[in-house]
């Protein structure tokens, strides 16, 4: 390790102590210490989250919202307690605005399906050119069903939204603006406050895809004044299979149910069914109870950390990675926005991302190679795929240095 690395400021963030909360990080891969740099795909889970799942199945497993026995009461209390943790975490007004779903994808599908029922042929939805497929395809399915029109905010070569184009996209038929808070393929953090303000001036509600933002930014849905906010538990150090849709109560109240079944009804007869109130109206069937409890625990864990310290550490990791990777011969960073979450997407002359992924894996470095479910972004940059190193507060400067060194080696070997 060079002197420059040793003198890299680490502030007050004790990364080694935090890493001990994540036992999975301590393993060896192909004879090297694991450097997990695929956090934008999914984050690792702290021990306390794993224990919450374990405890639930060992002691409290029961269905929720029915049955009066002790286990049902405990399961319901903890499940609804997790909903309150989510509400507090994103500062929603009420738990009525917090819908548990499988993840960001299902949350956006719910809005496209349910809010979308109010849209007519010729109505318009605005998306952006940096959306994940999860915020493109549900709207295309709606377009096939109802004949809505999709408009797309373009991006600039640096990977930022071309906001000069936005005013021209609003029209009398615009019904929704759906965009990502932070891009999974580029890292760009979008200036959503001003975008939401502009949309509201046109009386257009805004949905934010927060999958990549919640792990790295403090999200306050009231301060943002967004109308829908979708995110996944597994990218927020919680379990897979659980996610959240925040919806402004007034909008959720007016929306028809998403799926029908148990849990979402008040009374059912063959003549007429009345639906449950918020948020249960949108939660048909037995939910992922353990997953929700695990997500609640993940949030409590995050709240126990020095969040400012964690964010400062991530910012330094991003600066360090950008500097180190830029210095690697033949490497080009894709996405150089001013404000980014801590991820670096890149391509290297003569080295395909898939070969890169294999070579890095051999050195214990886990990165993602591919189109990142954002094929329009790949098309814009005229690349078939990129490699992506995405960081979390438990990553170290040493891991970044190992990555940079392995990238030089890959180029020497393959180019």
């Amino acid at each position, binding site marked *: 390790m060079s002197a420059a690395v040793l003198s890299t400021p680490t502030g007050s963030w004790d990364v080694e102590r935090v890493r001990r909360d994540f036992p999975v990080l301590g393993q060896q891969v*192909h*004879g090297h210490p694991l450097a997990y740099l695929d956090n934008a795909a999914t984050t690792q889970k702290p021990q306390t989250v794993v224990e919450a799942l374990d405890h639930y199945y060992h002691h409290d497993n029961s269905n929720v919202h029915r049955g009066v026995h002790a286990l049902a009461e405990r399961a319901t209390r903890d499940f609804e307690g997790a909903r309150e943790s989510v509400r507090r975490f994103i500062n929603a007004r009420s738990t009525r605005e917090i819908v548990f779903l499988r993840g960001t994808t299902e949350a956006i599908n719910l809005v496209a399906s349910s809010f979308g029922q109010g849209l007519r042929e010729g109505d318009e939805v605005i998306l952006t050119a940096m959306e994940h497929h999860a915020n493109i395809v549900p709207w295309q399915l709606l377009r096939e069903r109802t004949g809505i029109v999709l408009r797309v905010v373009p991006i600039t070569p640096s990977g930022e939204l071309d906001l000069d184009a936005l005013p021209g996209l609003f029209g009398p038929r615009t019904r929704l603006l759906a965009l990502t808070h932070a891009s999974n393929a580029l890292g760009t953090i979008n200036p959503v406050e001003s975008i939401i303000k502009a949309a509201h001036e046109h009386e257009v509600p805004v949905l934010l895809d927060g999958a990549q933002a919640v792990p790295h930014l403090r999200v306050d849905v009231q301060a943002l004044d967004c109308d829908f906010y979708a995110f996944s538990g597994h990218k927020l150090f919680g379990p897979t299979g659980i996610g959240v849709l925040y919806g402004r109560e007034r909008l959720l109240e007016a929306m028809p149910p998403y799926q029908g079944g148990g849990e979402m009804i008040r009374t059912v007869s063959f003549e007429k069914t009345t639906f449950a109130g918020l948020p249960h109206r949108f939660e048909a069937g037995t939910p992922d109870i353990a997953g929700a409890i695990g997500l609640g625990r993940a949030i409590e864990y995050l709240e126990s950390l020095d969040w400012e310290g964690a964010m400062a550490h991530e910012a330094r990791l991003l600066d360090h990675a950008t500097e180190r990777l830029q210095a690697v011969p033949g490497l080009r960073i894709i996405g150089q926005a001013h404000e980014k979450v801590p991820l670096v997407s890149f391509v290297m002359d003569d*080295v*395909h*991302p*898939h*070969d890169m*992924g*294999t*070579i890095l894996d*051999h050195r214990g470095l886990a990165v993602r*190679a*591919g*189109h990142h479910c954002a094929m329009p972004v*790949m098309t814009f940059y005229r690349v*078939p*795929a990129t490699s992506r190193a995405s960081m979390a507060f438990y990553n170290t400067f040493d891991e970044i240095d190992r990555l940079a060194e392995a990238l030089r080696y890959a180029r020497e*070997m*393959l180019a």
Partner: protein
Amino acid sequence: MSEMSDLYQELILDHKRNPRNFRDMPDATRAVDGHNPLCGDQLRLFVKVADGRVEDVSFIGVGCAISVASASMLTEAVRGKTVEEAQRLFAEMHDLLTSDHPHTDPAELGSLGALAGVHEYPMRVKCATLSWHTLDTALTGDEESVTTE
């Protein structure tokens, strides 16, 4: 886990850097597109078959080192063979790359044996088999394109 050099042998890297028969073929009797949606590898394989024999074979496209080298080596191995011989070779390569207990001896496949190391990398097997599946379709099927899914 095997060494990185078992996968990226010098012969494979040579084919990656200088792919053989990397050209369009206007008079091809069949042209088939092969696509690996997982990683974006995309190639177009051309064959010219006359009297049951592969007179010429070439490809164009983009892909990782393994898929480009595999396609390049394929063109060298298949040219001049009868359609039956080429199909047998496809079957042997498929066996070598995908089965846990292959019957095929890589030593008998000449330079193609260099691809045997791919078997140790399950995520990469499709990279190596893409061009071979495309060849199989070009020789026996009537589809215009192949994907690895």
